[in-house]
């Protein structure tokens, strides 16, 4: 009976807590959210004008309260992550005058989880000092996946000279979604990396980054290096990515080493690869060199269904 009374008290308190949290988040998502949107829109306009070379805006961007600073940080992040070619040095004065760096560092240290990760990511869009870079570096080995990739992105964006060395020293394997964040920096032109040394590297993270660059920028010339990886690498993920990249570039896959690698795959892996090649538009003839006669029957059925122009007819209702 006593237990039941304790339960009633606990559940009542918990219910009140949930009510409070729900009301608070409803308010945050309502009028306050709209005010924030307006504020951000106004800062976006000012940041765009500043980046487009209208120097007079540099003095006008003012954020004094925490809400304004947050809106300005998010506005800068939105503009910088969606555009390239603008000189981010122009932002330096705005960042300094409004103490945005200190503000973001404070938020990073006081928040946790995904909020911390989001603040770290936001920081990748502003020029930051060496002290801040050192501070951020400690989060690169965080146990939270989002935090560590956000910290790595910010570190690499702020310190491009050290990017390769830092990625090479990572204790964990980068996932495709992590590499996409680094590629986004390359697309913005703030991370000048040559793909060739990466492809020649024995470090799986660097090699994966090199392969991702080749694939994202459609570098046909990397054909030879990719073949070298396929011949020499014993890392399953690197090998898979190299073969998929060759396929994505539409390169011929008939070399002996590639054939051997495909033969060494398990039956299921070969089938999955065969399906992948069919969707990439490889012809039956191109695949004949890669798969056995029995597997070809399966590949042919797939490819034929993709080659719509062969023996297909437009439906006309009679």
């Amino acid at each position, binding site marked *: 009976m006593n237990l*039941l009374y304790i339960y009633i008290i606990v*559940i*009542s308190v918990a219910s009140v807590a949930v009510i409070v949290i729900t009301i608070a988040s409803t308010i945050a*998502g309502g009028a306050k959210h709209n005010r924030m949107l307006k504020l951000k829109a106004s800062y976006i306009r000012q940041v765009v004008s500043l980046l487009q070379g209208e120097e007079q805006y540099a003095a006008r961007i003012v954020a004094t309260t925490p809400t304004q600073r947050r809106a300005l940080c998010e506005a800068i992040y939105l503009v910088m992550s969606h555009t390239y070619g603008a000189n981010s040095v122009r932002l330096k004065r705005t960042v300094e005058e409004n103490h945005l760096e200190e503000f973001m560092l404070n938020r990073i240290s006081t928040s946790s989880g995904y909020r911390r990760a989001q603040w770290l990511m936001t920081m990748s869009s502003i020029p930051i000092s060496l002290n801040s870079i050192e501070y951020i570096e400690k989060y690169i080995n965080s146990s939270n996946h989002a935090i560590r990739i956000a910290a790595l992105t910010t570190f690499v964006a702020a310190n491009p000279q050290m990017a390769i060395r830092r990625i090479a020293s990572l204790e964990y394997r980068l996932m495709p979604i992590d590499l996409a964040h680094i590629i986004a920096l390359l697309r913005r032109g703030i991370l000048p990396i040559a793909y060739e040394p990466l492809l020649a590297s024995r470090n799986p993270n660097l090699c994966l980054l090199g392969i991702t660059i080749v694939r994202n920028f459609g570098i046909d010339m990397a054909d030879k290096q990719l073949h070298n990886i396929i011949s020499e690498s014993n890392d*399953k993920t690197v090998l898979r990515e190299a073969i998929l990249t060759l396929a994505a570039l539409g390169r011929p896959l008939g070399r002996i080493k590639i054939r051997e690698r495909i033969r060494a795959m398990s039956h299921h892996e070969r089938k999955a690869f065969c399906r992948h090649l*069919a969707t990439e538009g490889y012809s039956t003839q191109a695949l004949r060199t890669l798969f056995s006669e029995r597997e070809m029957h*399966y590949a042919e059925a*797939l490819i034929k269904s993709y080659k*719509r122009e062969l023996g297909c007819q437009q439906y006309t209702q009679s």
Partner: protein
Amino acid sequence: MSAIYTIITATLLLATILISLRTALIIKAVRHRKFFIDEAAGCCESLGFVGCSVICHTEVDMDLINHLLQSEYDRHEVVAALDSRLAPEEFYSIVEHFGMISVNPTTSNELKGIQLRALYRSRQRCYKRFVLIDAASTSPYDALNCATAVASFDYILPLPRNSRLHPYAIESAAMVISEQGDRGFDFIRCTADKECYILRREYIIQQDGFSASILGGTPRRNIISTAIPIAYSSESNKTIRRRLALYALGALGPFIVAGAFLASAPIIIATLLTAAFVALLARYSSQYIGTEKCSERVMLCYIRNLFDIFCLRKFTF
């Protein structure tokens, strides 16, 4: 007497803990998705070239197909299995609307007993890949098997009856799959909103196609559970409310009866407070799950999920 009180308190406490944990998992999963899946994740390269085929066979109409094709993700297709003899007008209106072309009904021969009358494919350049199969309507499982036989990708998402997909559902599914790396698994169980499954194509073939027992033949370590919302119920509010009332009655009824039988006000108060707590948590987590008001839908899923603990895993369609 005290034993009855202890059992009731323990049961209510267990339900409360499970539901609180579920809410925490949903919030964490949604935050994870929001962080990683921005608009850039529509490119399959960002998600390790994972491909996903959404298959459906009931209540297939233009509206549903347009909804399913809306995903921005690259490696994604929709396969619908219909019987043209049962609803010829609907069938051919879909063919005409999407400018589909008839191709030879070739299948991969991996599943036995697949008989297709016709196979239509959308032209890839103008439309996102959409495949329509004309197959005799025998059972829902046969229809799903026909759809699997012509699907091109490695992961199959059978759309549950009366369901739609959440925004970024395909990207989220691809993200979960991509995060597994080299870890092998048979299927992913999505429990946040309407329960649905993403099955590995090879697993479906190993199990000789879809059946009510397809989910039973796998060890627990080969199942991945995710709290990221993938599918939601498209049933009317009235139906959801009716079902919710039924489930709530089923869940709360025994406690209220026990309270009345023992003439114990604390039992009744504790039961009602637990129900209120579940409703409040569902209301709170619905802010994360959907953009529209979906607290009743989420509440129904919460209660269903509690019942599922005592049920055998069964694939119903």
